[in-house]
């Protein structure tokens, strides 16, 4: 800091009043976020809750609002999230282990690190362009679940890597040194001591990354996830739709009726997200209770 305190004229009472006003302004702005969240949730519940019923959950999309449902999208999202988890967790955790436990301090390592931080900020639609060209066209996976989940994998890898690295870094060095002292190799140390200790943190990060993947729309639109799917996908190569795509499709229609079922779709999506986040909170809570360092 170059400058010190500017000497402030005026009496202390005025300065104190100003200081207090500043505090209230900051507080008001912060609580505004709470109000916004409440308004958003209330609006969506008001518009959509009446439409969420068993028929809505078990029907395929339809031209008629009353018959339309979200079954194909729900199954599509579950497939997508499962496949994405299957691809992204091993690669993400492996990268985090490499960077934290193995990587020598050199140019390449720091380049990888910087690159991952930057990848986390690349707009999701650019990943969509990548997926469209690489998976849909060049590798000819077509507009399938495989293309969708591979695209999502690339999108959420940086999130998983960053979260896992933090979890691994939080494991105290003494644990590693104890393992080395007993003659364990680096991999044995990582596998039997570091990973189990970092697991709750990694899982929390993974779940957060998965909730990002389940809500992402733009890349799926890009790779051409269908908007009208009247079946449940059964294999990797099947075309699919997903919850956010279905919501987008309904919300983009001019008819008010479809807006209501878009809100109903949002409630289902938020419910799935809430479940996942509750799981993350539960894991964090349990691990904090069991932690011994």
């Amino acid at each position, binding site marked *: 800091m170059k400058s010190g305190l500017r000497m402030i004229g005026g009496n202390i009472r005025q300065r104190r009043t100003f200081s207090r006003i500043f505090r209230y302004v900051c507080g008001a702005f912060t609580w505004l976020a709470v109000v916004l969240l409440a308004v958003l949730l209330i609006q969506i519940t008001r518009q959509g809750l009446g439409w969420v019923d068993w028929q809505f959950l078990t029907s395929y999309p339809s031209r008629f609002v009353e018959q339309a449902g979200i079954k194909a999208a729900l199954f599509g999202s579950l497939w997508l999230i499962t496949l994405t988890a299957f691809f992204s967790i091993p690669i993400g955790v492996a990268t985090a282990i490499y960077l934290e436990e193995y990587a020598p301090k050199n140019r390449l390592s720091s380049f990888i690190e910087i690159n991952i931080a930057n990848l986390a900020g690349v707009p999701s639609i650019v990943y969509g362009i990548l997926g469209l060209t690489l998976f849909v066209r060049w590798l000819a996976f077509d507009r399938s679940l495989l293309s969708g989940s591979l695209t999502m994998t690339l999108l959420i890898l940086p999130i998983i890597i960053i979260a896992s690295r933090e979890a691994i870094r939080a494991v105290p060095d003494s644990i590693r040194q104890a393992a080395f002292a007993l003659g364990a190799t680096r991999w044995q140390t990582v596998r039997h001591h570091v990973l189990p200790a970092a697991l709750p943190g990694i899982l929390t990060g993974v779940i957060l990354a998965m909730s990002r993947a389940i809500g992402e729309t733009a890349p799926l639109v890009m790779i051409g996830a269908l908007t009208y799917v009247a079946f449940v996908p059964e294999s990797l190569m099947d075309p699919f739709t997903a919850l956010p795509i279905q919501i987008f499709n309904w919300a983009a229609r001019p008819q008010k009726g479809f807006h209501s079922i878009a809100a109903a779709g*949002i409630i289902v999506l938020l419910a799935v997200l809430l479940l996942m986040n509750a799981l993350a909170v539960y894991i964090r809570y349990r691990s904090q209770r069991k932690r011994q360092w």
Partner: protein
Amino acid sequence: MGAELITKRRLEAHKARRWREGGVKGILFLCALLSIVTTFSVIYILARESYTFFERVPVFDFLFGTRWTPLLEPRSFGVLPLFCGTLLIVVGSALIAVPIGLASAIYLSEYASERVRSVLKPILEVLAGIPTVVYGYFALTSITPLLRQVFEDTQVFNAASGAIVVAIMVLPMVASLCDDAIRAVPTSTRMAAYSMGATKYEVVAQVVVPGALSGIIASFVLAISRAFGETMAVTLAAGATPRITLNPLESIQTMTAYIVQVSLGDTPAGGIEYQTIFAVGALLFIVTFGMNIIAHKVLRRFREVYE
């Protein structure tokens, strides 16, 4: 003899273990390399496809042309209307999110008690975790009607409502990054200012915020870059009319919304309409990637100062 055999076996086991260690390390390294491969594939794909586009449309016409009608005759490929539409969203959302985000960060780190903080932080996280398509829906069905009540000439699709939801989306990011930056300012500097007789406001405005300035600015840059690339909310709320305007109540189209529009339609692959998405995507990528690099550089430098 027996002892020799044992030594030999041990040596073999040792060798096998060394091999395994090396193999594991190799696999882990390959996984780490994937991130670099990803970056280079993005750059390669965008460069290659934009190159074929720029063979047919001069770069100058693309960057400085003021008409964007790639899907209709007579065709024109000036990206400025899309860029201005994006800027309108970015500037609008920054004007809202930056002051509110900074104020929230100041409140969270300097004023809020531990209990209030433990309530507000998760709420901000929830706001950050809501999918963008939900914000788009919210803009379309709640914010736009509200705007239309206040300003009668608001169009059904308008930049203002897009900018407002994008602001809500980036707000948690600004608040949490600024909060980190402010918390990294050592307490001793605050105490020094108090001991000189400064009020809390003076400490915050003249000591804490200047001390955390690089981190705060980095958070603004990251938020702006995020607003640049935001897609679904602006596609739903801001419309599909490429137009150079400063009026936020009019319908516009952002670069991202254009890409979505093309990929939703049935434009045949290989045509020039199809290649436009790569040219627009390349521009988007360059702008956001550039801003991210700058922001992370600033963040890293600032971490070194205090740690």
